[in-house]
Protein backbone atom coordinates (compact mmCIF):
# COMPACT_ATOMS: atom_id res chain seq x y z
CA UNK A 1 0.00 0.00 0.00
CA UNK A 2 2.66 2.44 0.99
CA UNK A 3 4.31 3.19 -2.33
CA UNK A 4 7.70 3.28 -0.71
CA UNK A 5 9.59 4.63 -3.70
CA UNK A 6 12.84 6.32 -2.75
CA UNK A 7 12.18 8.72 -5.61
CA UNK A 8 9.34 10.30 -3.60
CA UNK A 9 12.07 12.38 -1.97
CA UNK A 10 12.85 13.96 -5.34
CA UNK A 11 9.21 14.42 -6.33
CA UNK A 12 7.78 17.10 -4.03
CA UNK A 13 4.04 17.82 -4.21
CA UNK A 14 3.89 21.02 -2.17
CA UNK A 15 5.90 24.10 -1.15
CA UNK A 16 7.38 22.71 2.08
CA UNK A 17 8.70 19.54 0.48
CA UNK A 18 9.68 21.62 -2.56
CA UNK A 19 12.24 23.78 -0.79
CA UNK A 20 13.73 20.76 0.96
CA UNK A 21 14.15 19.01 -2.39
CA UNK A 22 15.76 22.11 -3.89
CA UNK A 23 18.22 22.21 -1.00
CA UNK A 24 18.94 18.52 -1.49
CA UNK A 25 19.81 19.10 -5.16
CA UNK A 26 22.10 22.00 -4.25
CA UNK A 27 23.89 19.77 -1.74
CA UNK A 28 24.22 16.98 -4.29
CA UNK A 29 25.69 19.44 -6.83
CA UNK A 30 28.18 20.65 -4.21
CA UNK A 31 29.12 17.10 -3.33
CA UNK A 32 29.85 16.35 -6.98
CA UNK A 33 31.92 19.55 -7.36
CA UNK A 34 33.99 18.90 -4.23
CA UNK A 35 34.51 15.28 -5.23
CA UNK A 36 35.78 16.46 -8.63
CA UNK A 37 38.29 18.81 -6.92
CA UNK A 38 39.50 16.00 -4.66
CA UNK A 39 39.93 13.60 -7.57
CA UNK A 40 41.82 16.27 -9.53
CA UNK A 41 44.13 16.91 -6.53
CA UNK A 42 44.73 13.20 -6.15
CA UNK A 43 45.57 12.87 -9.84
CA UNK A 44 48.02 15.76 -9.63
CA UNK A 45 49.63 14.22 -6.54
CA UNK A 46 50.13 10.87 -8.28
CA UNK A 47 50.74 11.85 -11.89
CA UNK A 48 51.17 15.61 -12.07
CA UNK A 49 54.36 17.38 -13.19
CA UNK A 50 56.85 18.50 -10.54
CA UNK A 51 56.22 22.19 -11.30
CA UNK A 52 52.47 21.90 -10.75
CA UNK A 53 53.01 20.02 -7.50
CA UNK A 54 55.43 22.67 -6.26
CA UNK A 55 52.94 25.44 -7.06
CA UNK A 56 50.07 23.72 -5.26
CA UNK A 57 52.06 22.30 -2.36
CA UNK A 58 52.75 25.49 -0.39
CA UNK A 59 51.01 26.94 2.64
CA UNK A 60 49.11 29.28 0.35
CA UNK A 61 47.11 26.34 -0.99
CA UNK A 62 46.16 25.39 2.56
CA UNK A 63 45.02 28.94 3.38
CA UNK A 64 42.92 29.16 0.24
CA UNK A 65 41.71 25.61 -0.29
CA UNK A 66 41.67 24.40 3.31
CA UNK A 67 40.31 27.45 5.16
CA UNK A 68 39.13 30.24 2.84
CA UNK A 69 37.11 28.04 0.47
CA UNK A 70 35.20 26.05 3.15
CA UNK A 71 34.46 29.17 5.23
CA UNK A 72 33.03 31.07 2.27
CA UNK A 73 31.10 28.13 0.78
CA UNK A 74 29.68 26.82 4.05
CA UNK A 75 28.63 30.30 5.22
CA UNK A 76 26.92 30.95 1.89
CA UNK A 77 25.24 27.57 2.12
CA UNK A 78 24.01 28.22 5.67
CA UNK A 79 22.51 31.58 4.72
CA UNK A 80 20.97 30.13 1.55
CA UNK A 81 19.57 27.07 3.34
CA UNK A 82 18.01 29.05 6.18
CA UNK A 83 16.46 31.54 3.78
CA UNK A 84 15.14 28.84 1.48
CA UNK A 85 13.42 26.88 4.27
CA UNK A 86 12.35 29.71 6.56
CA UNK A 87 8.65 29.14 5.75
CA UNK A 88 8.97 25.74 7.47
CA UNK A 89 9.24 27.50 10.84
CA UNK A 90 7.32 30.70 10.05
CA UNK A 91 4.08 31.27 12.02
CA UNK A 92 1.00 29.83 10.30
CA UNK A 93 -2.11 31.86 9.44
CA UNK A 94 -4.46 32.05 12.45
CA UNK A 95 -7.23 30.16 10.68
CA UNK A 96 -5.03 27.35 9.38
CA UNK A 97 -6.36 23.84 9.91
CA UNK A 98 -4.66 22.01 12.78
CA UNK A 99 -4.40 18.29 13.43
CA UNK A 100 -2.74 16.44 16.28
CA UNK A 101 -0.99 13.23 15.32
CA UNK A 102 0.24 10.97 18.10
CA UNK A 103 2.70 8.18 17.46
CA UNK A 104 1.81 4.83 19.01
CA UNK A 105 3.56 1.49 18.75
CA UNK A 106 2.85 0.90 15.75
CA UNK A 107 0.13 3.14 14.41
CA UNK A 108 -0.99 6.78 14.50
CA UNK A 109 -3.73 8.53 16.46
CA UNK A 110 -5.26 11.41 14.51
CA UNK A 111 -7.30 14.22 16.11
CA UNK A 112 -8.71 17.11 14.07
CA UNK A 113 -8.61 20.25 16.25
CA UNK A 114 -11.03 23.18 16.44
CA UNK A 115 -9.67 26.77 16.60
CA UNK A 116 -9.33 26.54 20.39
CA UNK A 117 -7.14 23.44 19.99
CA UNK A 118 -9.69 20.89 21.20
CA UNK A 119 -10.24 17.66 19.23
CA UNK A 120 -13.60 17.58 17.44
CA UNK A 121 -13.08 14.44 15.38
CA UNK A 122 -10.95 11.36 16.04
CA UNK A 123 -9.50 9.07 13.42
CA UNK A 124 -6.37 6.98 12.85
CA UNK A 125 -3.64 6.14 10.35
CA UNK A 126 -4.91 8.43 7.59
CA UNK A 127 -5.20 12.20 7.28
CA UNK A 128 -7.52 14.16 4.99
CA UNK A 129 -6.48 17.68 4.03
CA UNK A 130 -7.68 20.36 1.60
CA UNK A 131 -5.35 20.82 -1.38
CA UNK A 132 -3.59 24.16 -1.78
CA UNK A 133 -3.87 25.12 1.90
CA UNK A 134 -1.24 24.83 4.63
CA UNK A 135 -2.09 22.50 7.50
CA UNK A 136 -0.28 22.55 10.84
CA UNK A 137 0.46 19.20 12.46
CA UNK A 138 1.08 18.89 16.21
CA UNK A 139 3.28 15.84 16.59
CA UNK A 140 3.33 13.94 19.88
CA UNK A 141 4.10 10.47 21.16
CA UNK A 142 2.65 8.32 23.92
CA UNK A 143 5.44 5.78 24.20
CA UNK A 144 8.77 5.93 22.39
CA UNK A 145 10.29 8.26 19.80
CA UNK A 146 8.67 7.99 16.37
CA UNK A 147 9.32 10.16 13.36
CA UNK A 148 6.61 11.51 11.09
CA UNK A 149 7.53 11.63 7.43
CA UNK A 150 5.43 12.14 4.31
CA UNK A 151 8.29 12.87 1.88
CA UNK A 152 6.21 14.46 -0.89
CA UNK A 153 4.53 16.96 1.47
CA UNK A 154 7.07 18.10 4.05
CA UNK A 155 10.17 17.38 6.06
CA UNK A 156 10.76 14.63 8.59
CA UNK A 157 10.18 15.45 12.26
CA UNK A 158 10.55 13.37 15.43
CA UNK A 159 7.64 12.69 17.77
CA UNK A 160 9.11 12.85 21.25
CA UNK A 161 7.24 11.71 24.38
CA UNK A 162 6.33 14.72 26.53
CA UNK A 163 6.93 17.25 23.76
CA UNK A 164 4.81 18.85 21.08
CA UNK A 165 6.64 19.47 17.79
CA UNK A 166 4.88 21.28 14.97
CA UNK A 167 5.26 20.58 11.26
CA UNK A 168 3.48 22.37 8.43
CA UNK A 169 2.41 20.31 5.41
CA UNK A 170 0.73 21.25 2.16
CA UNK A 171 -0.27 19.51 -1.07
CA UNK A 172 -0.62 21.66 -4.16
CA UNK A 173 -3.24 19.40 -5.73
CA UNK A 174 -5.51 16.48 -4.86
CA UNK A 175 -3.76 13.15 -4.45
CA UNK A 176 -2.77 10.34 -2.15
CA UNK A 177 0.60 10.56 -0.41
CA UNK A 178 2.36 7.78 1.44
CA UNK A 179 4.16 8.31 4.73
CA UNK A 180 6.32 6.17 6.98
CA UNK A 181 7.59 6.17 10.55
CA UNK A 182 11.23 7.16 10.14
CA UNK A 183 12.62 6.41 13.60
CA UNK A 184 13.05 2.81 14.68
CA UNK A 185 10.43 2.21 17.37
CA UNK A 186 10.74 -1.54 17.90
CA UNK A 187 8.95 -4.61 16.49
CA UNK A 188 6.93 -3.92 13.36
CA UNK A 189 8.31 -0.38 12.93
CA UNK A 190 8.87 -1.05 9.21
CA UNK A 191 5.12 -1.73 8.90
CA UNK A 192 4.12 1.62 10.40
CA UNK A 193 2.99 3.56 7.37
CA UNK A 194 0.69 6.54 7.01
CA UNK A 195 -1.54 7.94 4.26
CA UNK A 196 -2.43 11.56 3.48
CA UNK A 197 -5.33 12.23 1.13
CA UNK A 198 -5.60 15.76 -0.31
CA UNK A 199 -9.00 16.77 -1.69
CA UNK A 200 -10.29 19.75 -3.68
CA UNK A 201 -11.28 22.24 -0.93
CA UNK A 202 -15.01 22.04 -1.76
CA UNK A 203 -14.96 18.23 -1.71
CA UNK A 204 -12.99 18.34 1.54
CA UNK A 205 -15.58 20.55 3.21
CA UNK A 206 -18.38 18.25 2.04
CA UNK A 207 -16.57 15.21 3.40
CA UNK A 208 -15.94 16.78 6.80
CA UNK A 209 -19.56 17.94 7.05
CA UNK A 210 -20.79 14.43 6.23
CA UNK A 211 -18.51 12.98 8.89
CA UNK A 212 -19.72 15.41 11.53
CA UNK A 213 -23.40 14.67 10.89
CA UNK A 214 -25.12 12.24 13.32
CA UNK A 215 -24.16 8.66 12.56
CA UNK A 216 -26.91 6.07 12.93
CA UNK A 217 -25.53 2.53 13.21
CA UNK A 218 -28.32 0.25 12.00
CA UNK A 219 -26.35 -3.03 11.97
CA UNK A 220 -27.44 -4.43 15.34
CA UNK A 221 -25.75 -7.84 14.86
CA UNK A 222 -22.36 -6.35 14.01
CA UNK A 223 -22.58 -3.87 16.85
CA UNK A 224 -23.48 -6.64 19.28
CA UNK A 225 -20.62 -8.85 18.05
CA UNK A 226 -18.17 -5.97 18.31
CA UNK A 227 -19.09 -5.64 21.96
CA UNK A 228 -19.36 -9.33 22.90
CA UNK A 229 -16.10 -10.29 21.18
CA UNK A 230 -14.24 -7.67 23.18
CA UNK A 231 -13.25 -5.35 20.34
CA UNK A 232 -14.99 -2.43 22.06
CA UNK A 233 -12.47 -2.58 24.92
CA UNK A 234 -9.75 -1.32 22.61
CA UNK A 235 -11.59 0.45 19.80
CA UNK A 236 -13.94 3.41 19.64
CA UNK A 237 -16.82 3.74 17.17
CA UNK A 238 -18.60 7.07 17.60
CA UNK A 239 -22.36 6.73 18.05
CA UNK A 240 -22.05 3.33 19.74
CA UNK A 241 -21.03 2.15 23.20
CA UNK A 242 -17.60 1.12 21.85
CA UNK A 243 -15.23 3.54 23.51
CA UNK A 244 -11.83 1.82 23.87
CA UNK A 245 -8.76 3.95 23.30
CA UNK A 246 -5.95 1.35 23.24
CA UNK A 247 -6.31 0.80 19.49
CA UNK A 248 -7.12 2.93 16.44
CA UNK A 249 -10.47 4.75 16.28
CA UNK A 250 -12.70 2.75 13.91
CA UNK A 251 -15.52 5.30 13.44
CA UNK A 252 -14.45 5.86 9.82
CA UNK A 253 -12.49 2.67 9.19
CA UNK A 254 -14.60 1.77 6.15
CA UNK A 255 -13.48 4.89 4.31
CA UNK A 256 -9.78 4.19 4.84
CA UNK A 257 -7.61 3.26 1.90
CA UNK A 258 -5.48 1.01 4.04
CA UNK A 259 -5.45 -1.18 7.14
CA UNK A 260 -2.79 -1.86 9.76
CA UNK A 261 -1.33 1.68 9.50
CA UNK A 262 -1.01 2.28 5.78
CA UNK A 263 0.18 -1.20 4.84
CA UNK A 264 -2.69 -3.40 3.61
CA UNK A 265 -5.44 -2.64 1.08
CA UNK A 266 -8.80 -2.17 2.79
CA UNK A 267 -11.78 -4.29 1.74
CA UNK A 268 -14.12 -6.77 3.35
CA UNK A 269 -11.72 -9.63 2.69
CA UNK A 270 -8.63 -7.98 4.13
CA UNK A 271 -10.69 -6.72 7.08
CA UNK A 272 -11.67 -10.33 7.83
CA UNK A 273 -8.07 -11.43 7.38
CA UNK A 274 -6.80 -8.70 9.73
CA UNK A 275 -9.34 -9.48 12.45
CA UNK A 276 -8.74 -13.24 12.19
CA UNK A 277 -4.97 -13.12 12.39
CA UNK A 278 -3.34 -9.70 12.29
CA UNK A 279 -0.23 -11.24 13.86
CA UNK A 280 0.55 -13.09 10.62
CA UNK A 281 0.24 -9.81 8.70
CA UNK A 282 1.97 -7.44 11.13
CA UNK A 283 3.94 -9.63 13.54
CA UNK A 284 4.20 -8.20 17.03
CA UNK A 285 1.42 -5.62 16.75
CA UNK A 286 -0.73 -5.04 19.84
CA UNK A 287 -4.00 -6.50 18.62
CA UNK A 288 -4.64 -10.14 19.60
CA UNK A 289 -5.51 -12.67 16.85
CA UNK A 290 -9.08 -14.03 16.76
CA UNK A 291 -8.49 -17.43 15.22
CA UNK A 292 -11.44 -19.06 16.93
CA UNK A 293 -14.12 -16.73 15.57
CA UNK A 294 -16.55 -18.60 13.32
CA UNK A 295 -16.46 -17.69 9.62
CA UNK A 296 -19.96 -16.23 9.91
CA UNK A 297 -18.99 -13.98 12.85
CA UNK A 298 -15.82 -12.90 11.08
CA UNK A 299 -17.76 -11.97 7.95
CA UNK A 300 -20.35 -10.12 10.03
CA UNK A 301 -17.67 -8.10 11.83
CA UNK A 302 -15.92 -7.31 8.55
CA UNK A 303 -19.19 -6.18 6.97
CA UNK A 304 -19.98 -4.05 10.03
CA UNK A 305 -16.59 -2.32 9.91
CA UNK A 306 -16.67 -1.92 6.13
CA UNK A 307 -19.88 0.11 6.55
CA UNK A 308 -18.27 2.53 9.08
CA UNK A 309 -17.55 5.22 6.47
Amino acid sequence: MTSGSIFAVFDPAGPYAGSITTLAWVLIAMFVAVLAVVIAALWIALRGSGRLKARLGGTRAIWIGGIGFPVVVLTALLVYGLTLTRHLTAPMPQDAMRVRITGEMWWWRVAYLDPSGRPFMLDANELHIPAGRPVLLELESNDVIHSFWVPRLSGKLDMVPGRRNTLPIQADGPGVFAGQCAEYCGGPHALMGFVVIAHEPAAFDRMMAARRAPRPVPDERGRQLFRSTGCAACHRIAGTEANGMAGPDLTHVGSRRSLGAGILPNNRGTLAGWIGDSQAIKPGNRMPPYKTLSAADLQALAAYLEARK
Partner: protein
Amino acid sequence: MHTVRALLPLLLTAGCKPPPDEAQHMPQADPVRGKQAIVRAGCGACHVVPGLRWPQGQSGPSLEGFADQGLIAGRLPNRPDLLVAYVRNAPATLPGTTMPAMPLTDGEARDVAAYLYASGKR
Protein backbone atom coordinates in the same frame (compact mmCIF):
# COMPACT_ATOMS: atom_id res chain seq x y z
CA MET B 1 -3.66 -54.73 -32.66
CA HIS B 2 -6.93 -55.82 -31.10
CA THR B 3 -5.53 -55.70 -27.64
CA VAL B 4 -4.37 -52.15 -28.22
CA ARG B 5 -7.86 -51.17 -29.38
CA ALA B 6 -9.40 -52.77 -26.37
CA LEU B 7 -7.02 -51.05 -24.04
CA LEU B 8 -7.35 -47.63 -25.63
CA PRO B 9 -10.32 -46.39 -23.58
CA LEU B 10 -8.54 -47.55 -20.49
CA LEU B 11 -5.37 -45.74 -21.47
CA LEU B 12 -7.30 -42.55 -22.15
CA THR B 13 -9.08 -42.54 -18.84
CA ALA B 14 -6.21 -43.87 -16.79
CA GLY B 15 -4.91 -40.38 -16.02
CA CYS B 16 -8.07 -39.02 -14.40
CA LYS B 17 -6.49 -35.61 -14.37
CA PRO B 18 -5.57 -34.30 -17.81
CA PRO B 19 -2.04 -32.90 -18.13
CA PRO B 20 -2.16 -29.65 -16.10
CA ASP B 21 -0.63 -27.42 -18.76
CA GLU B 22 -3.41 -28.23 -21.23
CA ALA B 23 -6.35 -27.90 -18.91
CA GLN B 24 -5.00 -24.85 -17.14
CA HIS B 25 -4.14 -23.00 -20.31
CA MET B 26 -5.71 -19.52 -20.21
CA PRO B 27 -4.85 -17.73 -23.45
CA GLN B 28 -6.55 -14.41 -22.73
CA ALA B 29 -5.22 -13.95 -19.23
CA ASP B 30 -1.96 -12.38 -18.10
CA PRO B 31 -0.23 -13.82 -15.01
CA VAL B 32 1.86 -10.65 -14.53
CA ARG B 33 -1.26 -8.52 -14.23
CA GLY B 34 -2.67 -11.28 -12.05
CA LYS B 35 0.08 -10.84 -9.52
CA GLN B 36 -0.53 -7.09 -9.43
CA ALA B 37 -4.25 -7.72 -8.84
CA ILE B 38 -3.39 -10.10 -5.99
CA VAL B 39 -1.30 -7.37 -4.35
CA ARG B 40 -3.99 -4.75 -4.92
CA ALA B 41 -6.80 -6.91 -3.52
CA GLY B 42 -4.68 -8.06 -0.56
CA CYS B 43 -5.03 -11.86 -0.92
CA GLY B 44 -1.85 -12.11 1.16
CA ALA B 45 -3.87 -11.05 4.21
CA CYS B 46 -5.05 -14.66 4.41
CA HIS B 47 -2.81 -16.70 2.11
CA VAL B 48 0.82 -17.51 1.51
CA VAL B 49 0.95 -16.65 -2.21
CA PRO B 50 3.88 -17.94 -4.30
CA GLY B 51 6.20 -15.09 -5.26
CA LEU B 52 4.82 -12.74 -2.60
CA ARG B 53 7.16 -12.03 0.32
CA TRP B 54 4.66 -10.04 2.37
CA PRO B 55 2.09 -10.42 3.77
CA GLN B 56 1.89 -14.16 4.36
CA GLY B 57 -1.45 -14.54 6.11
CA GLN B 58 -2.38 -17.81 7.78
CA SER B 59 -6.20 -17.65 7.86
CA GLY B 60 -6.52 -19.46 4.53
CA PRO B 61 -4.54 -22.35 2.97
CA SER B 62 -1.18 -21.69 1.31
CA LEU B 63 -1.55 -21.29 -2.45
CA GLU B 64 1.91 -22.78 -3.11
CA GLY B 65 1.51 -25.74 -5.41
CA PHE B 66 -2.10 -24.88 -6.15
CA ALA B 67 -1.77 -25.79 -9.86
CA ASP B 68 -1.15 -29.43 -8.96
CA GLN B 69 -4.09 -29.60 -6.62
CA GLY B 70 -7.17 -31.63 -7.65
CA LEU B 71 -9.88 -29.62 -5.94
CA ILE B 72 -10.58 -26.02 -5.03
CA ALA B 73 -11.27 -25.76 -1.31
CA GLY B 74 -11.62 -29.55 -1.26
CA ARG B 75 -14.93 -29.53 -3.12
CA LEU B 76 -14.83 -27.94 -6.59
CA PRO B 77 -12.89 -29.40 -9.53
CA ASN B 78 -9.78 -27.31 -10.11
CA ARG B 79 -10.77 -25.87 -13.51
CA PRO B 80 -10.08 -22.36 -14.86
CA ASP B 81 -13.75 -21.34 -15.16
CA LEU B 82 -14.51 -22.42 -11.60
CA LEU B 83 -11.34 -20.89 -10.20
CA VAL B 84 -12.10 -17.54 -11.88
CA ALA B 85 -15.56 -17.55 -10.33
CA TYR B 86 -14.22 -18.70 -6.96
CA VAL B 87 -11.48 -16.11 -6.44
CA ARG B 88 -13.92 -13.35 -7.29
CA ASN B 89 -17.00 -14.46 -5.41
CA ALA B 90 -16.30 -17.57 -3.39
CA PRO B 91 -19.50 -17.66 -1.30
CA ALA B 92 -21.64 -17.59 -4.45
CA THR B 93 -19.55 -20.26 -6.19
CA LEU B 94 -19.24 -22.59 -3.23
CA PRO B 95 -21.88 -21.88 -0.58
CA GLY B 96 -20.54 -22.37 2.91
CA THR B 97 -16.91 -21.60 2.08
CA THR B 98 -15.07 -19.31 4.47
CA MET B 99 -13.22 -17.55 1.67
CA PRO B 100 -14.81 -14.07 1.25
CA ALA B 101 -15.84 -12.34 -1.98
CA MET B 102 -12.97 -10.17 -3.18
CA PRO B 103 -13.01 -6.85 -5.09
CA LEU B 104 -11.84 -8.14 -8.50
CA THR B 105 -13.31 -7.51 -11.94
CA ASP B 106 -13.95 -10.54 -14.12
CA GLY B 107 -10.83 -9.77 -16.15
CA GLU B 108 -8.72 -9.41 -13.02
CA ALA B 109 -10.10 -12.70 -11.69
CA ARG B 110 -8.93 -14.42 -14.92
CA ASP B 111 -5.47 -12.90 -14.55
CA VAL B 112 -5.35 -14.01 -10.91
CA ALA B 113 -6.29 -17.57 -11.87
CA ALA B 114 -3.64 -17.56 -14.60
CA TYR B 115 -1.06 -16.44 -12.05
CA LEU B 116 -2.03 -19.16 -9.58
CA TYR B 117 -1.69 -21.79 -12.33
CA ALA B 118 1.57 -20.39 -13.68
CA SER B 119 3.29 -19.91 -10.34
CA GLY B 120 1.64 -22.48 -8.14
CA LYS B 121 3.44 -25.55 -9.52
CA ARG B 122 5.37 -27.62 -7.07
